[in-house]
């Protein structure tokens, strides 16, 4: 996948093949691809929680944990990431695609 002239190895859904190559620049580019022009402080709070959980447990966090850790309301999270916590936020945070109906 190419964004802004940069090449990324991703799966068919655009999730990073190697989550370890993720950095803040990747996050910004992926977000832009989804139509999020600029990552705000709230976006970053969500991304950081997801990233930390991934590094500690190897899984995406529950939405409860995202809400309670960041203090951001559920409905606002869906507004911040229009594709939702999985295809939106987790992808921007560099995680692999979760299993299930997402």
């Amino acid at each position, binding site marked *: 996948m190419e964004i802004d002239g940069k090449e990324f190895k991703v*799966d*068919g*859904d*655009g*999730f990073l093949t190697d989550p370890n190559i993720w950095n803040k620049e990747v996050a910004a580019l992926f977000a832009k691809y*989804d*139509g999020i022009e600029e990552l705000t402080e709230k976006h970053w709070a969500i991304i950081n929680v997801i990233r930390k959980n991934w590094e500690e447990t190897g*899984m*995406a966090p*529950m*939405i*409860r*944990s995202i*809400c*309670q850790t960041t203090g951001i309301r*559920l*409905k606002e999270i869906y507004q911040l990431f*229009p*594709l*939702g*916590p*999985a*295809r939106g936020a987790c992808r921007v945070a560099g995680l692999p*695609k*979760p*299993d*299930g*109906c*997402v």
Partner: protein
Amino acid sequence: MKNFEDKKQKGLKVFSGQEDSKLITHLNSCVHCGLCAESCMYYLVTKDERYIPAKKVDLISSIYQRYCTFTGKYFPVLSKARELDEAAVAEMVDLLFGACTLCGRCTKHCSIGVDIGYVIKKGREMLTEMGYTPETLQSTVNAAIQSGNNMSIPESEFRDTLTWLEEDLRDEVNDPDASIPLNVPGKDILYTLNPREPKFFPLSISAMAKIFYAAKESWTLSTQMYDVTNYAYFTSNKDEAVTIAERLYNETVDMKAKRCVLAECGHGSRAFRWEAPNYLNKSFPFETMTSVELMAEYISKGRIKLDKSLNKEVMTLHDPCNLVREGGVIEPQRYVLKQAVENFIEMTPHGIDNYCCGGGGGQLAMSEYNERRMKTAEIKAEQIRKTGAKVVVTPCHNCVDQLMQIDNKFKLGVKVKTLSEVVADAIALE
């Protein structure tokens, strides 16, 4: 490492199952009238003839002819008989897994009644027997079998989420005693969830909890087995489908529930309500119903009162294939919407002739076919755009995700909601 010949013999066994004269009939009946072509989203969008449903049936039929008919066995060049070799396998994987949502629209349009969806499921079964299930799809089945739910949610996380949602419910209905009961035996209803609800999209859990509260329902969730999905239905792995279905069956019996109510999930409803009695080969001592029908029942019996002025936006309805075309649950969701929203407008076509969202049949899980999936989605995008609706309601969490992606890609500017969310928003508490 098993060699290909071993795999081939396993795959060909699908043709010799004693119970399956249906398969043989349907493999030998297509008259190539072509009506199915215009039914299929993959063909309509791409005009690629390989995607015509009859061609997919032909592919499986040609292998049947090669190994199971006299001319095919001894004079394969005289017939359409085809070897089951690695090239045939690759083509089957691409077409039967990668270019079919098992939406069943072709079956409904077939001039002579070939159950095309069934034949394709059997083709998937051959591939699964041979070990060619796409890994991206199988991983969701594995998660369910190994952890008890298809997103591998640990029990403690599940409990924490429901406690959190229970606090919200108490605020919402202004009652400190409102609850989301867990593991309480002897209730009338054992309710189920799609794991993506507790993991990422809990608004529909809150909505159903509010509806149950308003209806004064006797209900419980189970922390042991709440997963309504059964992805082994998509992989056509009967043993795994049985394992998953049996867990929900056993949990409903253990909980002594009168009803097992299935969350808004198309394939899950099909797999547990309509397929599972066959999987498990027994009739169920409890009633199985969808939450869609339950909501309609609450309204018609006056157990919940709705104020449609609380839902003013124009809303349309997307029909999940497994629930509507395959399951026959067609009117309850329309009855509910007419009571719950001021402006409800149908898509064209709708009901049993509706187009799939494009994410069915396990497509959402199979990343390798993402581009194709989102291309076929242009049909659904146009259907939605033409309604002018601001909200698309659909009683299936899988459809919800695909519709959100469609909204994003085709810039429709719509919100996507489950039916329970819309109903909960219209509830007028006394």
